[in-house]
């Protein structure tokens, strides 16, 4: 499209730029949301400490990076199995005890956990804003036609796709995925198949923590974080899950993108409106499409 007036040309370019940045930001939100989504999908558990666990993982990556002078990507690779173990133990020894018909115990226990992680991090790392150093990659961009695409945002988005494809393959193709679905359907009958539901739940949370580590890598290298940043991440993850539709991993990507685009457009109008614009998009979806864009057919 050619414009005769340079001003409108720049405006349309800005719109494209805004959209692209918003879509790429959506990749980060999809990574936040994917972990929340599988934990809910498999054991109907809403983990209110999910955002704080992302921040916890970001501090873990930061610590490994600075302690051993490693590349953050390598640090994340080391942090991932540790986070898996932490998630496994957390689920097996604490959260499994809260599962049942009553939804109050898991809600309150994970809320308590959220407060413990926040204040534990505050004790260990103080309230300062941190960032995982990434060197030249931080500001690297790829010129793509009219817009410059940041390497890290692009990598985030591609990672989100890889994570979703990986999780879907695991859940719908691998034996452990069958066990996840069977246990989610009926833990007693799953036990008759030789499945130990308690361990399946622990493995699912461990897996979610690996996804959390990936999310933390991109959060920590792209933006500042501090011990109190968890609840906002939980809220973005939650909004992406609801916008996308409960139970669909591709839905979380769509939800993340809707949220990212809304926030980026909001920020373009007024920097103070970025987060609010995301909330408004979420409420609009809730009003007009309460089950999200990709609701699961069978519930």
């Amino acid at each position, binding site marked *: 499209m050619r414009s005769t007036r340079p001003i409108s040309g720049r405006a349309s370019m800005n719109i494209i730029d805004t959209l692209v940045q918003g879509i790429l930001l959506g990749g980060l939100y999809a990574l936040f949301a994917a972990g929340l989504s599988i934990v809910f999908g498999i054991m109907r558990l*809403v983990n*209110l400490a999910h955002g704080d666990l992302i921040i916890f993982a970001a501090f873990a990556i930061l610590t490994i990076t600075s302690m051993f002078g490693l590349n953050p990507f390598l640090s994340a690779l080391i942090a991932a199995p540790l986070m898996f173990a932490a998630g496994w133990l957390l689920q097996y020894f*604490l959260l499994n*005890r*809260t599962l049942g018909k009553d*939804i*109050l*115990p*898991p*809600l*309150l*226990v994970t*809320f*308590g*956990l*959220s*407060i*413990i992680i*926040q*204040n*534990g991090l*505050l*004790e260990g790392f103080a309230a300062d804003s941190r960032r995982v150093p990434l060197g030249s990659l931080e500001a690297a961009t790829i010129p793509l036609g009219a817009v410059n695409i940041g390497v890290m945002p692009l990598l985030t988005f591609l990672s989100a796709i890889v994570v979703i494809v990986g999780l879907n393959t695991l859940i719908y193709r691998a034996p452990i995925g069958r066990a996840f679905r069977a246990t989610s359907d009926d833990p007693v009958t799953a036990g008759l198949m030789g499945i130990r539901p308690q361990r399946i739940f622990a493995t699912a949370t461990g897996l979610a923590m690996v996804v959390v580590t990936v999310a933390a890598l991109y959060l920590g290298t792209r933006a500042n974080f501090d011990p109190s940043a968890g*609840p906002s991440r*939980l*809220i973005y993850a*939650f*909004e992406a899950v*609801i916008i996308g539709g409960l139970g669909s991993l591709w839905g979380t990507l769509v939800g993340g993108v809707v949220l990212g685009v809304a926030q980026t457009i909001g920020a373009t109008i007024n920097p*103070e409106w970025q*987060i*609010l614009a995301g*909330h*408004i998009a*979420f*409420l609009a979806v*809730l*009003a007009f499409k*309460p089950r999200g864009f990709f609701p699961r057919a069978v519930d």
Partner: protein
Amino acid sequence: MSSTAQTWTTKTGTRASGLFGIAAILVVIVAAAAPFLVSRDIVQDLFFILTMLVLAQNWNLLAGYAGLLSIGQQAFVGFGAYSMFGMVILLGVDPLLATLLAGFFAVLLAIPSGFFSFRLQGAYFGVGTWVIAEAVRLVVAQWKALGGGTGTSLPGEARKAMFGVDFLKNTFDMKTSQASDAIAYWFALVLAAATVLLFYRILRTRQGLGLAAVRDNETAARALGVNAQRMKVFVYLTTAFVTGITGALIYLQKARISPDAAFSVTDWTAYVLFIVVIGGIGTIEGPIVGMIVFFVLQKTLSDFGSVYLLILGFIGIATMIFAPAGLWGLFSAHTGIQLFPVRRRLVLNGSDHTLQDTRKGGFNG
């Protein structure tokens, strides 16, 4: 029932609850005299206890009875407080009247808030209410007339001119700050007593017993003719009203407001959850016990900052895992004592049979 040879009556009171009722009236009378008897610091502590108790009772009614696990009650605290500030600063309304009216503004917020959050189920309802509280905080932070993101103070002359301040100053020779604290304290005392009585009455009505039925088994309750959704909406709006007034009252006493403080999830929801859980959810006694424990912990540990919150988190989790009925639940299970008996008992020829099933008592008795 009455056609049988034996005579049945239903009874909810117990000996313990009768004695407690008399004791409670005495406590309220003594408490009312506090501003004349104790220092201003202690009056402020009592004010804190009373207002947090009201918030805890509200959350208890929401979550413990109606099964509405809100994590967004700070929306009504903050909005109530801000609407009071708005009425006082922009319209010159008397602060005491504005505090009362704040309840209606909280209900005005609760209507759209409920429209959105009631579309979500269970724990997602909770996170939904949290998102709404965040959205309201961000909108209020744009309200430049009330200081935007940094907040504002209640004008000194408004507090000076507040209803009753002159009377106290002239009659009892109080300072302005002392007098306005006393008024806020009495307001809190009346609010706390009224809240406890109101909820007690609600829970003893047919609707209230229906509420317990909804909590225990929504499908069965519906079969008995209880309109679960209507009950939930009623509780949601009622608690928004009381929470809004409480928020306004808290900030009337603080006299300084900012969006981050007034919409704080830690101060107005996390603490409240802790109080209810530690004391015992689903009873009127529980939040009272929880409030006492919370206050003692705060007095002894709050200097330790984040460690204090860390400890609260651990205590909360341990309670939920090992004693889900809370301290009052443990006590009540061992002694059988109920101070606010809402369960009806059939008294057969003078001997006492507690009905295991509150629903039976509610609909036949």
